[in-house]
């Protein structure tokens, strides 16, 4: 078991009287090596769930355990460290930093790394650049390359710290079908050959069917696992 959510609630205080409940009593276990899709209409809470899994947000109630360790009691620095080492993010809008080159973007997580890396980050970045077909773009700036290329840079960035878990939030949402398919192919490959655990949030049924496990959400609740 890689990740376990038990009795997770996420509530937002809209004003004094109104409380919006984004997640209701979520219980979910994700095992190592899984390739999971979280699907659901917009507003179903799937993004909120992903933010909780990605340690970007914390639940109002409930426990999140990573490898049997309760992380809801950790402080901000410890959470940041865990985020740096445990999760790799791929976002819908790529979220690259435009003032840094492709290579520098890929290296950002290593700048903030607290653990000693047992590999040379630059060499690893170059390997990932080659693996994802980005040769020659190392010193380009993100706004000078195509969307598909940008998303592959984001994937290289997500992998540079060698995380157990890759979280992809609508990874194909901003891409044309061809680029989207390429990204999906890479994600599948990462799951199959690298044995990485992958969670995709998507509203595209077509994408969801390519995964091994489907989690369907409606109104902040999991309706089908």
């Amino acid at each position, binding site marked *: 078991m890689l990740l376990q959510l038990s009795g997770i609630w996420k509530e937002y205080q809209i004003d004094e009287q109104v409380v919006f409940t984004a997640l209701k009593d979520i219980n979910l276990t994700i095992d190592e090596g899984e390739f999971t899709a979280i699907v659901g209409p917009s507003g179903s809470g799937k993004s909120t769930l992903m933010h909780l899994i990605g340690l970007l947000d914390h639940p109002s109630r409930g426990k999140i355990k990573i490898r049997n360790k309760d992380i809801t009691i950790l402080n901000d620095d410890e959470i940041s460290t865990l985020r740096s080492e445990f999760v790799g993010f791929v976002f819908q809008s790529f979220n690259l*930093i435009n*003032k840094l080159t492709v290579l520098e973007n890929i290296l950002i997580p290593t*700048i903030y790394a607290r653990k000693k890396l047992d590999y040379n980050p630059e060499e690893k970045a170059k390997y990932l650049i080659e693996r994802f077909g980005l040769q020659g773009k190392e010193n380009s700036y993100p706004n000078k390359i195509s969307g598909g290329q940008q998303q592959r840079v984001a994937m290289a*960035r997500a992998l540079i710290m060698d995380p157990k878990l890759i979280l992809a939030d609508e990874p194909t949402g901003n891409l044309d079908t061809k680029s989207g398919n390429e990204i999906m192919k890479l994600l599948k490959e990462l799951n199959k050959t690298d044995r990485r655990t992958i969670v995709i949030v998507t509203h595209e049924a077509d994408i969801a069917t390519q995964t091994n496990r489907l989690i369907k959400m409606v109104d902040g609740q999991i309706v089908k696992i």
Partner: protein
Amino acid sequence: MNYFLFIIKSAAFDFSRNKGRTFLTSLGILIGVLSVVLLTAFGLGLKKYIADQFESLGTNLLRVLPGQPLRSGGFSGGPSSFGTIHFEEKDVVKLSRLRSLEVVVPVYYKSMDVVAGKNTEFATVYMTNSDVFKAINLNTEYGAPFTKQDVEKRSKVVVIGPKIAENLFADQKAAVDRSLKIEGQTFKVLGVLGAKGGGFGGPDLDSFIYMPYKTGYIFNTDKQFIILILKVKSDQSIETAKTEANDILLKRFKKDDFSIVEQGEILSAINSIFAVLNTVLIAIAAISLVVGGIGIMNIMYVTVTERIKEIGIRRALGARKKDILYQFLVESVILSLLGGLMGLLLAALIILFVQRFFPAYIDLQSIMLALGVSSAIGVIFGVFPAKKAADLAPIEAIRYE
């Protein structure tokens, strides 16, 4: 890639993308540092200038003054504290017997109209003996100084400063052997002195007229002196000479009626006045540094708001709060330091130019201070915006559009 190198590169990119904004923001610090460094440099220059002037007026000098004008290190009470006593020739004679003294120079001075042909100048006439030239380093450029005999014979001769020579006779050299009139009396110009400089608020030494004191009794009917200048034989015997002269004068005057001051005491009294003035000016200039700091704080808040998304991305990729804090602090320090460096550079250029006329200079201390203060301003005024950036919730930041 090194952590700080990475942060600095990222800051440099933002600065180069907003060149105009970066420059305008550092301008406040630039002006602050420029004015503080310039004022410090001028203060140092003034101190050096005064010291040089004193040096050129002779060394190992003691001045006997009426009253206690220099009590407790500053001019206390203003001109009125100059007492009413006067020195007489017998004091000069008694003091001259002291072994420790080389010469004793009595001085009476009066400002009067001096006429040569059609030209009239209002000038200070120093009535003194022939030792004055040796005591305060006066050398004649043209002609010769007056002698002991001129004093004894009450010769109607004068030695004049180069500036007044030019004003009265159009040419320094031509002034020798010409005559001038002071209050209806005619005097022959024996010599013209070399230039000493002066002005800048102090006495204009080059416009003085020197006259044998006995001749001067025409204007000084009470035969009294205002100041006695004592030149001591060597600097080791200054204290001895001071005590001995004091003992002699105490026989005739009360303790508080006169004072014997060293050149150095006068120098430090003048310096302390200028130091206070300079400090006040620098303090006023330092206000502009605070204003500059506020400008930096303002722009850092704008920068943080513009880059909320970037902060969110960095947090998602593992940056801790303090990583974000450092990033923005480094940026504000660079911004402030940039202004400080430019201010320092501009100040150096101005001082380099000014040095042709005035011995102003920038010392290492003010360089360190300028850079230290501008870094400190960067930290102080950068910490609040940086804290704001660091405290953003990662999820809010990354969702921000």
